[in-house]
């Protein structure tokens, strides 16, 4: 047995889980798919006195179409998106992203809510939900609340979750059918966390573009100036300059090599969206 001893509670409902987490004297952590937390427990890097397992809460494993948006339960595994067992309103972007996270044996257990709660800057879903302008639905001792995906992550592994709060769902608006997306991820080995990754969206009907960059030492960067240039139909040279400028002007202090990598990845995402 690798981890240090801990107590275990299999939560029967969201309310039960939150009641268990609402403890200031001991370290209580929620267990979702465990694909990041259990390795950390095995390495004894994540201290924990008690685990609250969310695996028994069926309400968190459902996806529901709600008019112009889809509400995805936080405990849906990546493979549910990959296999299209849940509805999609993103023109195939979410199934694509779900199918290229880590490896199949991880995707069957790792969950969308768990991945977003961990807030690893290089995590796939984080970038995706920010790009799709989703909302994060949260439940805690004070009841439910909702916040924009762009405001959920505050730094590397830091989120807006308060004491004993949990993500219960991710609410993704249906994107226009005429919108195209492009994704690009730079990794040294397949299945690894990204060195850089970007998603570009462009809807020719409304002429609206969106460019979001991930693996950037904190929350994903929404590159608004660059997106405005995409809408104007800028060529690759012009876009490269604007992206470079916007990255330098950000607060992330990129090294010259990182700037080069992020700029290249952003351009490739735009290319993969069928632009340029």
């Amino acid at each position: 047995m690798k981890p240090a001893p801990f107590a275990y509670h299999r939560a029967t409902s969201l309310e039960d889980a939150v009641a268990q987490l609402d403890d200031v004297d001991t370290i209580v952590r929620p267990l979702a798919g465990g694909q990041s937390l259990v390795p950390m427990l095995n390495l004894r890097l994540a201290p924990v006195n008690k685990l609250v397992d969310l695996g028994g809460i069926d309400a968190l494993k459902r996806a529901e179409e709600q008019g112009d948006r889809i509400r995805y339960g936080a405990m849906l595994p990546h493979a549910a998106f990959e296999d299209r067992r849940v509805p999609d309103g993103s023109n195939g972007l979410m199934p694509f992203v779900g199918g290229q996270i880590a490896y199949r044996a991880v995707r069957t257990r790792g969950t969308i809510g768990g991945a977003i709660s961990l807030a690893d800057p290089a995590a796939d879903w984080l970038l995706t939900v920010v790009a799709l302008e989703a909302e994060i639905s949260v439940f805690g001792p004070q009841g439910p609340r909702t916040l924009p995906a762009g405001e959920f992550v505050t730094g590397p592994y830091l989120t807006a979750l308060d004491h004993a709060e949990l993500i219960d769902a991710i609410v993704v608006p249906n994107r226009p059918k005429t919108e195209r997306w492009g994704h690009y991820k730079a990794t040294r080995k397949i299945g690894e966390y990204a060195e850089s990754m970007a998603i570009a969206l462009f809807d020719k009907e409304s002429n609206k573009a969106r460019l979001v960059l991930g693996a950037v030492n904190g929350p994903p960067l929404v590159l608004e100036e660059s997106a405005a240039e995409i809408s104007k139909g800028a060529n690759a040279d012009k876009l490269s300059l604007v992206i470079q400028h916007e990255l330098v002007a950000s607060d992330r202090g990129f090294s010259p090599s990182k700037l080069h990598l992020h700029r290249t990845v952003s351009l490739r995402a735009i290319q993969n969206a069928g632009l340029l």
Partner: protein
Amino acid sequence: MKIDVTLMINGKRRTMSVEPRQSLADLLREDMRLTATHLGCEQGVCGACTILIDGQPARACITLGVAVDGAEIRTLEGLQDDELMSILKESFHDKHGLQCGFCTPGMLISSWDLLKRRPKLNEQEIRLGMSGNLCRCTGYQGIVRSIKAAADKWAGSPSAREEAEG
């Protein structure tokens, strides 16, 4: 404090008392003596401990035994009479899909799942699908050849066609 869990392991119902911190891999190897499931890195990287939980591949080293209460677990031992697994084992033998054999149980389970989901595969798709399993002997050439040979054989078998239709 130990917790009671009931699992269906390779078709047999087992109830046992486990410590919350015990991994499913340790439970299988030490309590059940099912030692085909190998432990390499114990942090979810190498894939040697890949098993099937409710028919889906998973890393037994980063799955807690208590967290899979009620699940159906299948290890390599439990696929002894499986047609596809027999084809894979034969191919690994014929095409030199192993040297020391430590990674082989994970390789077999992962490739079994891959071929169940996608009966027709080219070399590139095999390499992509097997990227979560590490081998430190073969350089992967023999493994990829083995899976390709198995894929071709499986694609032509009546059971594969039945599964594709069903």
